[in-house]
């Protein structure tokens, strides 16, 4: 999806260089040195990123076409798309996908609403602004695993304050209640990030416009839906894209809270289990590739259908 987003800008850059070239005949020595220096500076970053992502991804595609179980090293064999058929016809995959989608949709929607409220609070508040931001950054920064243990114990009957407050219930032992706890932990952790991204968008809304609308008699709700929201749309879409992709990868919270028990595993949990419990590299890689495809589809939908600006693509235009 970034390819589509970056082609127009890329062509522009090429045109720019060509334009310069026409003015100054061939590239001047200085311009050529600048180019070489630019490439040189980018090289280490590019090499590391390709080595760690592109190469393993290609290797995963190859592994996904093999029967490859670490327990049966002599039985490694090329089997085409059989792994994909096995995964896509397995109820475990669809169950994990369902759980992942439910967690993603619910947590992203709730986080958006709460994040908008948090952004308003951080934006409007005159007194104690620093303390709110500092407090909000704690859930963002805290190690997910550490927070997850806190939630787990809080919901353990007999020892947790939340369990005690809710009639000594044990939500982590039931599928949908456990998913609700997982979603709660996700929301607590990610609302501050959403709030901060939306705050940045909110500060771009001109104060004069809001005041003018107020003078014209617009209610607070009208001002929010007719002025603030449309102007914040780009920021909201970028924040939603980031949060959705991040939420779709959910792993840490589930691993600690339920370890996937009672059908609460996400697709990432399924991939992990197939590698480290079943020691099946072929199936594990197939799940990896399928997750990658899901993420690509989500990003494509956001960027193409909703028109989310891919962050960073407008660098040259400024």
């Amino acid at each position: 999806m970034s390819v589509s987003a970056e082609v127009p800008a890329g062509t522009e850059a090429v045109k720019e260089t060509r334009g310069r070239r026409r003015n100054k005949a061939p590239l001047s020595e200085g311009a050529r040195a600048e180019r070489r220096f630019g490439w040189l500076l980018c090289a280490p970053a590019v090499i590391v990123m390709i080595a760690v992502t592109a190469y393993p991804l290609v290797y995963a595609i190859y592994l996904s076409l093999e029967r490859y179980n670490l327990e049966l090293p002599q039985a490694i064999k090329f089997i085409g798309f059989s792994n994909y058929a096995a995964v896509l016809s397995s109820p475990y995959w669809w169950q994990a996908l369902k759980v992942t989608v439910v967690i993603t949709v619910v947590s992203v929607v709730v986080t958006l609403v709460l994040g908008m409220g948090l952004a308003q609070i951080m934006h409007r508040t005159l007194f104690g602004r620093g303390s709110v931001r500092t407090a909000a950054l704690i859930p963002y920064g805290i190690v997910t695993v550490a927070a997850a243990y806190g939630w787990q114990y809080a919901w353990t009957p007999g020892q947790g304050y939340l369990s005690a407050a809710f009639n000594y219930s044990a939500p982590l032992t039931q599928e949908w209640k456990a998913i609700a706890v997982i979603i709660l932990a996700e929301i607590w952790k990610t609302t501050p990030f959403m709030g901060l991204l939306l705050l940045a968008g909110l500060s771009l809304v001109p104060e004069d416009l809001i005041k003018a609308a107020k003078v014209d008699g617009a209610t607070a709700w009208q001002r929010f839906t007719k002025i603030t929201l449309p102007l914040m749309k780009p920021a909201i879409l970028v924040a939603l894209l980031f949060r959705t992709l991040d939420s779709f990868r959910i792993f840490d919270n589930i691993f600690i809270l339920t370890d996937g028990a009672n059908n609460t595993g996400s697709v990432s949990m399924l991939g992990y289990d197939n590698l480290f419990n079943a020691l099946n590299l072929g199936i594990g890689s197939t799940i990896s590739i399928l997750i990658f495809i899901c993420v690509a589809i989500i990003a494509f939908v956001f960027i193409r259908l909703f028109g989310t600006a891919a962050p960073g693509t407008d660098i040259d235009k400024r």
Partner: protein
Amino acid sequence: MAAVNTTARQKVGWTTANFVVIALALIPVLWLASLSFKTPAAILDPSFIPHSWTWGNYDQILSTSTFVRPLINSIGIGLISTVIAVVFASMAAYAVARLRFPGKQLLIGMSLLIAMFPAIALVTPMFNIERALGLYNTWPGLIIPYVAFGLPLGVYTLSAFFREIPWELEKAAKVDGATPMQAFMRVIAPLAAPGMVTTAILVFMFCWNEFLFAISFTSTTASRTAPASIEFFSGSSQFAVPTGPISAAATVITIPIIIFVVFFQRRIVAGLTSGAVKG
């Protein structure tokens, strides 16, 4: 008169909202800290504030290598990854912000792709590659993926910061006869230092938090990081659930985050928002 009342009421409203936010953010953390100070008997009492306090859980985790060694690994791996990622990202971000060269958009696009990359998609192939290269269960085995995933964050944040630096200073340095490299090292780097500190904090927090790679590419305390080590804790007896020690360990790894957040709140907010949302 009415207007005055509204603003006063609004002030009370926003202040109340502030307190609600602060309480919601802190209660789960305070709960974890409270658990870590409870005696084994008091663990089975759901009260929020411990009736009897003890340092026993901390004594237990800090006296065994089950936690101390992973804590050292976490600090070492986090610092090394951060330094490498910030250096590489600074170089690339400088090029993106200041130089004209084809392929710039490709770099941005690639960073974006990696920022969105599902980490699990790399775990299976990387596991096999790391075993083949002898990187499995070593520090570099974690440092390399951490650098790769810290880089997109660094490139974004730093190119946003670098664009704010006045161009003219670099030009002036070049007029005075400095090479592009000298202009970078002598003029821009010192101005860029605040942005680099911010980026370093964000990258370190990412490494400190990371869990999936940490449990996938390690097998002993030789390289296991602190978050990954917690699940290997045992209770005081075979049958005791190690709630106290786990809470203590979780509290210990939260302390650096709280220090960062308290001292660098402005920088972290600026860093998070500058890279991600502009325009």
